[in-house]
């Protein structure tokens, strides 16, 4: 597998927040045109990993290459260029609440291209058709339902025809039918546009349905990385617990238990967030 064929390459990524070791030696690659699912429970570090992939956080050590470029080493103009080639659909949608759905989707076009308004309008409506939201461009984000917000966010993420698409929890908080329709949409996008898609989710059904390969994160480590069948057949107990929705036995550590009871905190820092501006 050559470097050019990999859309994402993460090598030995380590991150700390205060004294907390959040990601431990994470290495993975996402191949051209595949749907790669990053899976893990709450607090497994998957959101932190995504924020690193998006360049919103700087790693303590290790490298991240997107479309062959190291995002922490390229100059700002190239980074801006790279960012026009990737799309991101955030968990909450992150639509700009002061703009209509249409303006939200048109924003990257208005900012990064010299297209005239007519063309921008056509492209915007085209993308709304793709996510089955045609005719909703005049609504404000506050007037949309949860599923519609996710689909509008996807439309905005793909408006520049990116080579690489990131989706954060695309089906979280949606009813099963709407969640399934979002999964179908992600599959259609890959098939129609040939983009590489990285999906972060804790939804097992959705992960198995759309993934080409799955990476299971646990406590900041890559527990397993492989195709859907390999993950299903994994003998690892923690993975089987995750797959069968079993809660894990809490480890017995009397010292830690005593420290907690005494109110002695360790690593009380919050989760790292993106840059303020």
């Amino acid at each position, binding site marked *: 597998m050559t470097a050019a064929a990999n859309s994402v390459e993460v090598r030995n990524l380590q991150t700390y927040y205060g004294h907390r070791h959040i990601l431990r030696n994470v290495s993975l690659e996402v191949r051209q045109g595949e749907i790669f699912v990053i899976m893990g429970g709450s607090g497994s570090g998957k959101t932190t990993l995504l924020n690193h992939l*998006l*360049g*919103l956080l700087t790693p303590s050590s290790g490298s991240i290459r997107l479309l062959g470029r190291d995002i922490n080493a390229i100059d*700002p*103009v190239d*980074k*801006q*260029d*790279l*960012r*026009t080639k*990737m799309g*991101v659909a*955030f*968990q*909450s949608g*992150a*639509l*700009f*609440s*002061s703009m209509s759905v249409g303006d939200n989707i048109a*924003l*990257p076009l208005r*900012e*990064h291209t010299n297209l005239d308004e007519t063309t921008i309008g056509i492209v915007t409506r085209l993308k709304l058709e793709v996510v089955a939201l045609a005719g909703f461009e005049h609504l404000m984000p506050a007037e949309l339902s949860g599923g519609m917000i996710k689909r509008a966010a996807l439309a905005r993420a793909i408006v520049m025809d990116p080579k690489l698409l990131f989706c954060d929890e695309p089906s979280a908080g949606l009813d099963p039918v709407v969640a399934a329709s979002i999964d179908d949409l992600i599959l259609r996008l890959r098939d129609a546009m040939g983009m590489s898609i990285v999906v972060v989710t804790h939804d097992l059904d959705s992960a198995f349905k759309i993934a080409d390969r799955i990476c299971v994160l646990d406590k900041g480590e890559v527990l397993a990385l492989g195709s859907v069948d390999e993950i299903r057949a994994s003998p690892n107990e923690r993975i089987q617990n995750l797959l069968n929705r079993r809660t894990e036995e809490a480890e017995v550590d009397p010292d830690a238990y005593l420290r907690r009871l005494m109110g002695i905190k360790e690593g009380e820092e*919050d989760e790292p*967030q*993106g*840059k*303020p*501006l």
Partner: protein
Amino acid sequence: MPSRLHALLDRLGHATIRAVEEFGFAASLFGEALWWLAMGRARRQPVRMAPILAQAMEIGIAALPIITVLAGTIGLMLAIQGIYTLRTFGAESRVTLGIALSTVREFSPLITGILVAGRSGSALAARLGTMRINQEVDALTVMGISPVRFLVVPPLVAMAVMMPLMTLWADLVSLFAAGLYVSAQLQTSLAAYGDELLTILRLNDFMHGLAKSSIFAALITIVGVVNGASVSGGAEGVGRMTTRSVVHAISAIIITDMVFAFMVTR
């Protein structure tokens, strides 16, 4: 006791570091905003006119009615107090001097600054804070759009243009309202009052007030943005930082006013 002292010193140290950090963030933000204003086009991210105009409407034009009312009231108040004070010496006829200089040099820029800080500075902090907790700022970043260029520069430019204009308007309204009261009380004509104003006021006095209002404009914007960008902890955090931005902006305005007056009039 030593442990309590230790805790106190610890808190004091942390608070100092946070204050220095915040000041540094504000300074770098201001620098970055000016950089985007100058270099945006070369970096294929020009600062666009439409959002600046929209902000100018919101910050300036929409505030005109309330500025007019407040400036008029201040003018009347100054005239009433001025005549009352000078009556002690039988020098009511000299009241115009005090009104003219205090309005143009102090009251107009100050009242405009405080009003804009309460109206637009807080709105800026709340908007940015909400955008931050909704990941909208992250969304801009990953789209390759600089949040500073997109969110900070338009209000900064709009504020810098509108504040001096609003101060000038407040000067006119305030002096006019004072004139109405003075001419009625002292049985002189409004024209005589106007004549007196023209002999008293020099360009320097106007410039003193307008220069201050430009500094206030930068202060209000940066304080609003820094507080908005530092929001954490959901809706409650937005409320807390919005309040903080108003308090900080008004404090900064009043202190800067004093420092400016001290430096320039000595």
